[in-house]
């Protein structure tokens, strides 16, 4: 497996009148070619800021990448000038935004919006670009592309608009596709179509995808690996089976437990109490500790390091420390683990790294 992207200890801060908001506080992960990584977390956990930083789309000021490196095929994006970035953005890495209602230009014909990147990056002339646009619209499943490309965004439905956004992102065959909640604004049936489309295209083009969402159902559908973010940090990362069938971090337990399953009986949902911390002044120790019923004394004093559960699975919780007591996860999580004990490693403790 070839590494496409490597993020090392990235910190992103915003300077506001109230002080420095530490939106991302030391995120590290890597991404292989052709792989899909899903980033999940609540709003404000820093998942969107992380991906915007990858694209160098953080407005500076007030934002800045304080520390860390982003290696895209070995080149450090944090050290690049805006001019260099413009050559990469849209060509080698592209983004699909959440809201198809606002991410298209309402005064421009759809065809021209898709063409923009082709003309700029691929140096195509208009006739070539037009041909490619018809291909792209066909690829994303828009019927009658020849006449559709002359229409304006308001003449498309939400699902169709999102297909146009996908087409724009795919126009230059990017190596990395970042999708920031691409289906949140859509209905379930349309969502299913868009997800199938994205998976299909990924298979054809072998691009890598970073998929941001808070819908765990969608994660289970699309992801190869999952990173769970909380208060600007990755608290658990692993393969999709690791995270869904052998979760180690209490926050992951909470997220999984707060979704009703279709066959669940009338038991009360497991709700994480309280709300996420204020990143103007992140709490000492583990940021999740005040909402965590499994928190121990050390969680309030010292931030937990990443513990290695298996080759693919890491989690930042003191519960994995060799001296920690064995904690029983909530009942619904245990049910998940039982279904899975066969394939994933089931060791209770992890190795500190």
């Amino acid at each position, binding site marked *: 497996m070839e590494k496409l992207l490597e993020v090392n200890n990235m910190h992103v801060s915003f300077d506001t009148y109230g002080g420095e908001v530490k939106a991302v506080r030391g995120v590290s992960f890597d991404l292989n070619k052709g792989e899909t990584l899903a980033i999940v977390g*609540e*709003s404000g956990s820093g998942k969107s800021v992380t991906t915007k930083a990858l694209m160098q789309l953080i407005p500076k000021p007030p934002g800045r990448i304080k520390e860390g490196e982003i290696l895209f095929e070995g080149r450090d994006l944090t050290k690049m000038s805006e001019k260099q970035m413009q050559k990469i953005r849209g060509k080698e890495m592209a983004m699909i935004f959440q809201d198809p209602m606002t991410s298209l230009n309402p005064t421009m014909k759809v065809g021209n919006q898709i063409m923009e990147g082709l003309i700029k990056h691929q140096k195509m002339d208009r006739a070539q670009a037009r041909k490619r646009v018809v291909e792209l619209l066909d690829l994303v499943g828009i019927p009658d592309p020849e006449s559709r490309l002359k229409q304006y965004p308001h003449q498309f439905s*939400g699902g169709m608009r999102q297909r146009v956004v996908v087409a724009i992102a795919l126009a230059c065959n990017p190596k990395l596709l970042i999708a920031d909640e691409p289906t949140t604004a859509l*209905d*379930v*049936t*349309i*969502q*299913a179509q868009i*997800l*199938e489309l994205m998976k299909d295209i990924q298979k054809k083009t072998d691009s890598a995808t970073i998929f941001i969402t*808070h*819908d*765990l*159902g*969608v*994660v*289970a*559908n699309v992801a190869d690996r999952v990173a769970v973010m909380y208060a600007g940090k990755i608290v658990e990362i692993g393969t*999709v*089976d690791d995270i*869904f*069938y052998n979760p180690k971090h209490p926050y992951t337990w*909470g*997220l*999984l*437990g*707060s*979704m*009703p*399953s*279709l066959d*669940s009986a009338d038991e*009360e*949902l*497991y*709700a*994480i*109490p309280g*709300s996420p911390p204020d990143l103007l002044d992140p709490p000492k120790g583990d940021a999740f500790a005040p909402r965590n019923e499994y928190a121990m004394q050390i969680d309030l004093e010292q931030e937990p390091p990443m513990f290695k559960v298996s080759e693919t699975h890491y989690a930042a919780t003191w519960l994995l420390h060799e001296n920690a007591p064995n904690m029983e996860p909530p009942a619904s999580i245990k049910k998940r683990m039982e*279904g899975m004990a066969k394939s994933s490693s089931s060791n209770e403790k992890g190795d500190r790294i």
Partner: protein
Amino acid sequence: MSQEKLVEIKNLKQHFKTGRHSVVKAVDGLNFDIFKGETFGLVGESGCGKSTTGRTIIRLYDATDGEVIFNGENVHGKKNREDLKKFNREMQMIFQDPYASLNPRMKVEDIIAEGMDIHGLAKDDKERKAKVHELLETVGLNKEHANRYPHEFSGGQRQRIGIARALAVDPSFIIADEPISALDVSIQAQVVNLLKKLQHEKGLTYLFIAHDLSMVKYISDRIGVMYFGKLVEVADSDDLYNHPIHPYTQSLLSAIPLPDPDYERSRERFTYNPNNHDTSEEPEFREVRPGHWVLCTTKEFDFYKKEHATTK
């Protein structure tokens, strides 16, 4: 759950004129009952008319045709102020967007107490304050919050304020229009648990409108599925999920992604094709299994009965 009807909706229609000759039939002939103490879930894709249904029931819109009978009395039609007040007290609404549904220039105390003021439920200022404090605690906030403004709260907290406002006049029926769609997953669970607890304590009846089918299944006793202004299927929530009969319901259920990778790898999605229906006659609402109603023609009805009546 009693079988006493609290709300009866009979042939409800809501048509909007969009031009001189064009009419949007947002809601087109709905028939269903809501029983006392139950939660009736209404699901469907955006634009299917589920929110319009909720808003028409509570008379935010005047119905084009049909009746909404609440406790034996028609909600629509000519009413004097007194009668209207009586209904307004019994029926309350919780809105989708907790950012847009609270007046940013009013203090939380006044937002919650507005209904009490209108209905004259508090004798004096002291009683008003005490009631607001009690309501805040009921919904899991504390009384210090009464003097703050909406912008000082998070989305989940604001939705709690919206719930407190709805509860302030002691209603028996609450219409919740996508009350959790704008909230984070972990906060959604908090609000749903709160709604369930309140229903238990106060014997409330809910009409729960949402597009998140797994949450609707969790909270509802019965569910109605809407498609293009019409109800296509009504059944007990378990029955609906285990034996969906109408092809649209089947396609909707097959499209929900579940937080279970193994299931997701094997999931098969059906697409609904509205042209596959029998068009020899106007479809009607018919009872295929006990308590399980489907919109179908006579031919389809016979077919559904054969297919589904026996499966348990």
